[in-house]
């Protein structure tokens, strides 16, 4: 997947598609063109063959007429015996194509002339000679040229032959029977023959122009080769002997069709030794002599034009596709140029340079849209970063303000221990650990009128700034109310009234306030919905205060809070806490619980307030085991040392 460009991908797809389409079109075109060429060639071949047949017939037909006329003249006794030879001589004189002529009579037709009588006129050089056929060595009436017309009562073209004794040229003999009347009966009397040179066939056949190297050949009714470009075949081979020698059964069946006088144009399913390659053949028979003309077409030449066109087409396609590739590459490059610019800009932006100048794209298309979106994104990002910086600094500011708030809040509660070095009857220790920067827990203690020790612990509903503000209000109200009051119920009732007034947010404080008379050890307290504190008696006995029936302050302004009195003995301690202690949770949401709290208090009944609270802190830390502190934790322990009164 290394650097595969979009252009390459598209070009590959488009080219594959084009090549596919072209292949289909080309196949169809090729098929139809080939069929057309085949049809044209066939028509041309048939025309050519017919034309050749006509040319040959034009020579042979007049020749056929001569013996026919002589025969009829003989039959009508027009020709007398004496005038035969001069007549034949004049025929030869007038017909250059006729090489010789004979009139052969039945044996002993003229008893006075003996068994044989056949005057024969023939050319010898430029002159015309006369002789007579027949003798003991040449009993002509047993020859084919005599026997066949006699038997069939019809004219006959002999198989071509070489006139070896004479001019040594290819000849054929046309013989026709003649009849005379003997005793009034039409009786076969002999045969009139004409020998024709077939040299003219060579000329006609060799004049045939078939494609570039195609050729024509002529076979006799027995398949003997009469003309062929290969002179060795002529009169020496037949189409069947050639087929056999070359083991070409296809040629044999064509030969059979040809001697049977059939005609056809077809792909030749044989190979020719004379002409290599795939061949087509057209053959047609001559009506008179029953010879057959075969015309051979080399397929490579037949479809040469098609091949040429194919090559041209291929070159055109390759050229066209190359052009298309170049075109696509240019288009894609034009399209993707902005993308590349954008991509490098994007990297700069990613590295934090928001002011990088983006490329200007005015293509009025999706690319421009993308670029616009990009510019928008860049702007938004820059703005976002600015906002983020502002927010972060604002947050830092708030955090630092919260830290300061916490310091102020902490400053509001007493945190110097021991607080009253000059009051030996009382010792106090307290801690407050907020879950957030500022919390809603509070504790407070102070001395009223010199011998009344007032202490309070409270927990504002909720956390954070609202709770801390409510806590501050509560603490301030308590201090101001207790300035002139020493009754817990009055203080709490008054506090509740002030807090409930216009308390739209329905925040509330669980609040425990006690006032201990240092001289008598009498504790008066009021519990407004706060966790019951624990009293640790001097003898180590530990009990929890009763649950309160008074609701937290800040809810209903005319709620009536009452106070309870309890006589403390020397060494009695009171352990106060908020629900952050009893409900400290670990990761499994398991609460610290009242029982654990009571156990730890019991185990540390003799400990100093400071040690008890530290011990409790350790136990809480062990319990939560690092889990986030969810609520403020506040603890306060008070020891009443009544013995100092007596001393």
């Amino acid at each position, binding site marked *: 997947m290394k650097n595969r460009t979009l252009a390459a991908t598209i070009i590959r797809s488009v080219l594959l598609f084009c090549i596919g389409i072209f292949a289909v079109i080309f196949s169809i075109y090729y098929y139809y063109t080939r069929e057309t060429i085949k049809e044209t060639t066939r028509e041309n071949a048939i025309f050519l063959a017919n034309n050749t047949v006509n040319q040959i017939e034009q020579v042979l037909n007049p020749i056929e007429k001569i013996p026919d006329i002589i025969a009829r003249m003989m039959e009508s006794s027009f020709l007398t015996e004496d005038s035969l030879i001069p007549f034949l001589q004049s025929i030869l004189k007038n017909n250059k194509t006729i090489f010789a002529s004979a009139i052969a009579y039945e044996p002993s037709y003229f008893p006075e002339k003996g068994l044989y009588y056949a005057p024969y006129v023939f050319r010898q050089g430029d002159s015309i000679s006369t002789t007579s056929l027949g003798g003991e060595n040449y009993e002509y009436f047993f020859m084919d040229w005599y026997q066949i017309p006699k038997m069939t009562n019809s004219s006959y073209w002999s198989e071509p032959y070489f006139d070896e004794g004479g001019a040594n040229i290819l000849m054929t003999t046309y013989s026709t029977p003649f009849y005379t009347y003997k005793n009034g009966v039409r009786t076969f009397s002999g045969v009139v023959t004409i020998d024709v040179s077939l040299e003219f066939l060579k000329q006609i056949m060799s004049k045939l122009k078939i494609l570039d190297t195609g050729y024509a050949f002529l076979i006799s009714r027995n398949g003997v080769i009469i003309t062929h470009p290969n002179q060795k075949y002529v009169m020496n081979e037949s189409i069947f002997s050639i087929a056999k020698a070359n083991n070409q059964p296809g040629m044999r069946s064509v030969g059979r069709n040809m001697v049977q006088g059939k005609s056809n144009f077809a792909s030749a399913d044989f190979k020719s030794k004379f002409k290599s390659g795939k061949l087509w053949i057209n053959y047609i028979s001559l009506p008179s002599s029953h010879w057959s003309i075969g015309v051979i077409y080399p397929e490579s030449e037949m479809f040469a034009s098609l091949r040429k066109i194919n090559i041209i087409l291929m070159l055109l396609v390759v050229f066209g596709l190359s052009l298309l590739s170049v075109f696509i590459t240019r288009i894609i490059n034009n399209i993707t140029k902005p993308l590349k610019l954008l991509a490098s800009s994007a990297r700069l932006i990613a590295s934090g340079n928001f002011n990088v100048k983006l490329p200007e794209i005015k293509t009025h298309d999706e690319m421009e849209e993308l670029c616009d979106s990009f510019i928008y994104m860049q702007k938004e990002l820059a703005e976002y970063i600015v906002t983020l910086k502002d927010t972060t600094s604002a947050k830092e500011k708030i955090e630092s303000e919260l830290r300061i708030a916490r310091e102020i809040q902490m400053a509001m509660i007493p945190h110097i221990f021991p607080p009253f070095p000059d009051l030996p009857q009382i010792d106090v220790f307290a801690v407050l650990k907020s879950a957030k920067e500022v919390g809603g827990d509070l504790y407070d203690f102070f001395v009223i009128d010199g011998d009344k020790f007032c202490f309070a612990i409270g927990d504002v509903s909720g956390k954070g700034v609202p709770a801390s503000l409510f806590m501050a209000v509560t603490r301030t109200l308590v201090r101001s109310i207790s300035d002139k009051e020493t009754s817990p119920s009055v203080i709490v009732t008054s506090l509740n009234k002030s807090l409930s007034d216009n308390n739209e947010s329905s925040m509330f404080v669980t609040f425990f306030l006690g006032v201990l008379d240092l001289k008598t050890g009498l504790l008066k307290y009021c519990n407004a*919905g706060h966790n019951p504190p624990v009293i640790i008696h001097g003898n180590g006995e530990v009990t929890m205060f009763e649950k309160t029936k008074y609701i937290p302050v800040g809810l209903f302004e005319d709620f009536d809070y009452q106070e309870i009195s309890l006589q403390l003995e020397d060494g009695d301690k009171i352990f106060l806490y908020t629900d952050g202690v009893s409900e400290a949770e670990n990761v499994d949401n398991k609460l610290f619980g009242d029982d654990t709290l009571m156990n730890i208090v019991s185990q540390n009944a003799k400990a100093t307030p400071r040690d008890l609270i530290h011990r409790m802190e350790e136990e809480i830390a062990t319990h939560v085991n690092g889990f986030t502190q969810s609520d403020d934790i506040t603890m306060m322990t008070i020891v009443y040392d009544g013995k100092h009164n007596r001393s």
Partner: protein
Amino acid sequence: MNVEILAAADYSLVTVEGRVDTTNANEFEKSMLSVVDGGATKIVLDCAGLNYISSSGLRVFLIVQKKMIAIKGKFALCCLQPEIKEIFDISGFSSIFSIYADKEAAIKG
């Protein structure tokens, strides 16, 4: 936390499950106020599935209670788990809420 509200002919039954603490007290408040502002005159809050409640959650209870008192309606709690009941007891809230042992009693009461 999961809150389901079912409005019947003469009361609305709200079922709260899970924990109601500082993080979702606002969401709980919105759900409850939607019932109150919807004109319900009697709301039964089924706390059978309520595992934990913080003071922020208690505040929501109080807001609903105050609003119901203002329209002379009724806000009944039922099926409090012992730990939750303990919190109500400790904070004295048991005295200002109508708490029932089961749903039928809460609907009737």
